[in-house]
């Protein structure tokens, strides 16, 4: 693959003695939506969390192998983990607004990275990212209200805007619509489809229909291993592995 953005090499991950990821070798293409699928407990979320070094936030974990972002191993001891997380953003399963106003939620990330020079520049960027997330119209008159005053669907778009504001290159989504109602889910999905022209997107999902709507590239996992990976149309129409076939047919 020419335009590989994330490359995983011989990745093994352990929770205590439990071997959660077994010898993963995959490539994730740039400016596409890659969907990680598989039954519960197969290691989808674990794999996703190795991409922004969130895996190590769990206690008693161990990891071997490499994750290369643009050819640079993010597990190298000389890597600054905050820089990794700035480049690799995360949209969590449930919306988690920060305990501050709507405005500050977006500005927070830019402030800690000191990305802008003055208040006006922050203000402009906050508006810009709220517009991208399709939230500006709904919130521009109440920027100083607490973020929790928004609906759950709005909160998730706020989290999306907040993540984009630190100018990442990659967006990870950990079942980002599973806590939302159908209309809000659809809203987030259409944002992601728009965003893929500028960002590489990796989504974990357990709904097959969502995977089919979004995926350009699919990784199918089973019991901690990558059972199948490839372009979406190939995996969906002509799965090579028996497990994938059964999963797609809804057998388990």
């Amino acid at each position: 693959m020419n335009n590989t953005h994330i490359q995983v090499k011989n990745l093994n991950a352990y929770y205590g003695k439990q071997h959660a990821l077994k010898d993963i070798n995959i490539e994730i293409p740039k400016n596409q939506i890659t969907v990680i699928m598989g039954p519960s407990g197969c290691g989808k979320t674990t794999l996703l969390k190795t991409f922004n070094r969130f895996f190590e936030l769990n206690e008693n974990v161990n990891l071997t192998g490499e994750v290369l972002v643009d050819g640079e191993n993010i597990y190298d001891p000389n890597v600054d983990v905050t820089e990794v997380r700035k480049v690799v953003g995360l949209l969590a399963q449930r919306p988690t607004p920060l305990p501050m106003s709507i405005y500050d939620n977006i500005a927070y990330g830019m402030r800690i990275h000191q990305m802008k020079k003055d208040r006006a520049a922050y203000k402009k960027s906050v508006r810009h990212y709220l517009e991208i997330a399709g939230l500006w119209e709904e919130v521009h008159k109440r920027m100083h209200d607490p973020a929790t005053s928004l609906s759950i669907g709005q909160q998730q778009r706020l989290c999306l805007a907040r993540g984009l504001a630190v100018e990442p290159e990659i967006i990870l989504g950990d079942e980002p619509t599973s806590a939302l109602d159908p209309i809000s889910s659809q809203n987030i999905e259409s944002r992601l489809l728009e965003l893929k022209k500028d960002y590489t997107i990796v989504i974990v999902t357990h709904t097959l229909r969502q995977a089919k709507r979004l995926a350009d590239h699919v990784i199918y996992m089973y019991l901690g291993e990558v059972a199948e990976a490839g372009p979406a149309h190939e995996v969906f129409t002509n799965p090579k592995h028996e497990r994938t076939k059964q999963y797609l047919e809804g057998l388990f």
Partner: protein
Amino acid sequence: MKFQKKHFERRHIVELVIKTIMRLALFIVAGTLGLILWTIISRGLPSLSWEMVSQVPKGGYYMGKDGGILNAIIGSAYLATGGTLLAMILSVPIALYLKAYLGKSRWGDYVRLSLDVLWGIPSIVYGAFGFALMVLLGMRASLLAGIIVLALVELPIMTRAMDEVIRRMPSDLEHAALALGSTKFEVAINIITRQMLPGIITAILLAFGRGIGDAASVLFTAGYTDRIPTSLMNPTASLPLAVFFQLGSPYPEVRERGYAAALILTIAVLLVSFGSRWLAARLNRYTIK
């Protein structure tokens, strides 16, 4: 008849007995609190006067003559505020360090254990320790020494109370900030303190309450004087000791004033308590419920 109450079934009797015991226990506690308040109000209120809160003791005050306990009111305000501020300067960083960096590690447990042990040490021991230290340094009883010892008394309470509050911080929230590339320090300062501010204020208040009411630790270290301190090196009076000395008096009118001093102390604690609750509620606007 299917739903008829069966009063004499064993499990219903057990419930009734246990419920009665629980109510009795509640009544004893509430009743004791009521009695305490009634005692200090009924005995202290008649002697409470403007003179008492606006003047320092004059000659013969301790034999029932004119004057007040302004020296002790101001002294206690200085001591407890100073002690609480000093304890805060140490507590907040410890509590945040415990959360953000030590977490559930073995070292975190050691720190918590030592704080719990410190919490259990009676304040007279802190007083004696402070006094021994003062002798060693050639210091005399002073406001400064009182503040330092009170800070030591308050520190474990404040830190552990904050720690218990901060531990309940939802990890989702922390992760949300980490995902944006925050350092752990930024998470501690920007997210944890904001989210947990009401709890942190409660912890500070709890420590302040113990500080302002503590007599044993300031007995040797701050001393007692009829004058209002004008420097950190002056000895100073305090409300708990004002209560203690006056209640021990053979003169009935002085004893009554002891109750009045206790009433002032109680009102002061109540005012601070309500004030900080009001403040916490106002700062609560952005916290995630």
